[in-house]
């Protein structure tokens, strides 16, 4: 008997790398206790990580050469432990601790896995959906929001935008006042139709709607933030997100993802 839930390959890796929440890590530990083959693979990746650490010794133990001294700097050649690197090492220690906790949990749960599984099955209804989808990041979440906004407004034939781009000065000023976006970005072969203000995380988000030369509508969502690049796709809709100059952007539409990539590049997503 199992918990009835499937753990994705990506989540097994995320478990090894300490990238899951405590709750999810515990649930993966349950899964591993019930699926020893996956447990062996996870152990193998942990051993790989350890071997990688051993394969590349830290140069900190080596004598620092004069050649490495940064140009035009008076910094000493020795490198004492200081806050920045301590933060870095603390992060690594935390990962190691989490890993030990997870390993302990896996071991403890191996003994009582059946009982735990039975409890989980009887304590609440079985969830027909996998308890773990693919890893979703804040960046992917922003891309998902752009897709949802496109669904809501781009399909509104009557009033897709609040302020039309015919009065660009008014649109730009309004968006700047409400969302801090300096000005609506231009897309080469696309025409800006107008914009909306949407609720954001902390700040308002700007929603801009463009019509491409192909006739397709694409939305650009922008709000203050600094996330890494993300992506989302579902039901023929897709989005790409990135960050630039203190703003998160996401471009979404019912167009080929390759087209979205080129739009994102054009709008400032780094290569």
């Amino acid at each position: 008997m199992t918990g009835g839930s499937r753990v994705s390959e990506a989540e097994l890796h995320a478990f090894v790398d300490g990238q899951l929440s405590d709750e999810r890590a515990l649930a993966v530990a349950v899964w591993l206790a019930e699926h020893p083959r996956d447990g062996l693979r996870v152990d193998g990746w942990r051993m790989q990580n350890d071997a990688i650490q051993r394969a590349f010794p830290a140069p900190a133990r080596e004598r620092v050469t004069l050649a490495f001294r940064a140009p035009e700097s008076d910094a000493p050649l020795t490198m004492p432990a200081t806050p920045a690197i301590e933060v870095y090492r603390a992060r690594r220690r935390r990962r190691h601790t989490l890993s030990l906790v997870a390993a302990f949990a896996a071991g403890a749960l191996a003994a009582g896995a059946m009982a735990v599984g039975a409890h989980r099955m009887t304590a609440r209804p079985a969830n027909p959906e996998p308890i773990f989808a693919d890893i979703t990041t804040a960046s992917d979440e922003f891309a998902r929001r752009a897709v949802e906004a496109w669904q809501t407004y781009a399909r509104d034939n009557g009033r897709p935008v609040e302020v039309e781009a015919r009065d660009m000065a008014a649109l730009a000023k309004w968006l700047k006042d409400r969302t801090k976006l300096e000005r609506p970005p231009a897309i080469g072969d696309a025409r800006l139709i107008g914009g909306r203000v949407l609720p954001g995380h902390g700040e308002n988000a700007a929603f801009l709607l463009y019509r491409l030369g192909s006739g397709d509508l694409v939305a650009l969502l922008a709000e203050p933030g600094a996330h890494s690049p993300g992506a989302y796709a579902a039901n023929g809709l897709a989005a790409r997100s990135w960050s630039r100059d203190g703003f998160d952007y996401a471009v979404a539409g019912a167009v080929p993802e390759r087209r979205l990539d080129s739009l994102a590049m054009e709008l400032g997503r780094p290569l």
Partner: protein
Amino acid sequence: MSEERKSTPHSEALHEGAPELRRFARALVGPVSTRTADTLAQTATARIAASDRLAGDPLERTFAEIVRLNRRRVRERGRASEPAEAVGAEAERRDVSMAGQIAVMPLDEREALLIVALAGYGYEAAGRILDLPVSSVVSRLMRARARLDGAKPGVAPRSGHLRVVK
């Protein structure tokens, strides 16, 4: 210009992180190019230290600069898929095996594996450093680990069942 470099807020933090940066650069470049790796780390450190941009962790940005410089180096030399030379035989056998396998990995997989498993960054930060969506970081990491699994004697590569996360 030198005065400006001295006064930037990043200089001290980057000197503190220098061993980690050099270690990463050496692993990324390969076992026979320590000098090249150190030059990459030094150049990246100097550039970020001289930068007046305050946003973001300077150490993280320096890792990203090392990645960027190395990609350019590989592109310019046209050696993206060329395996590195064999590791010295005097090195410890187990480490030789791991370093050697990583050295002959495709660059995209090597970057993802090293930034997570060696430098210790989480997936979000790895995405920023490698300038990739997190899903791409994870899929590359998965391929790299599958490659290492497949390199073990008696263990067949299992790329067939890997699910690439879009």
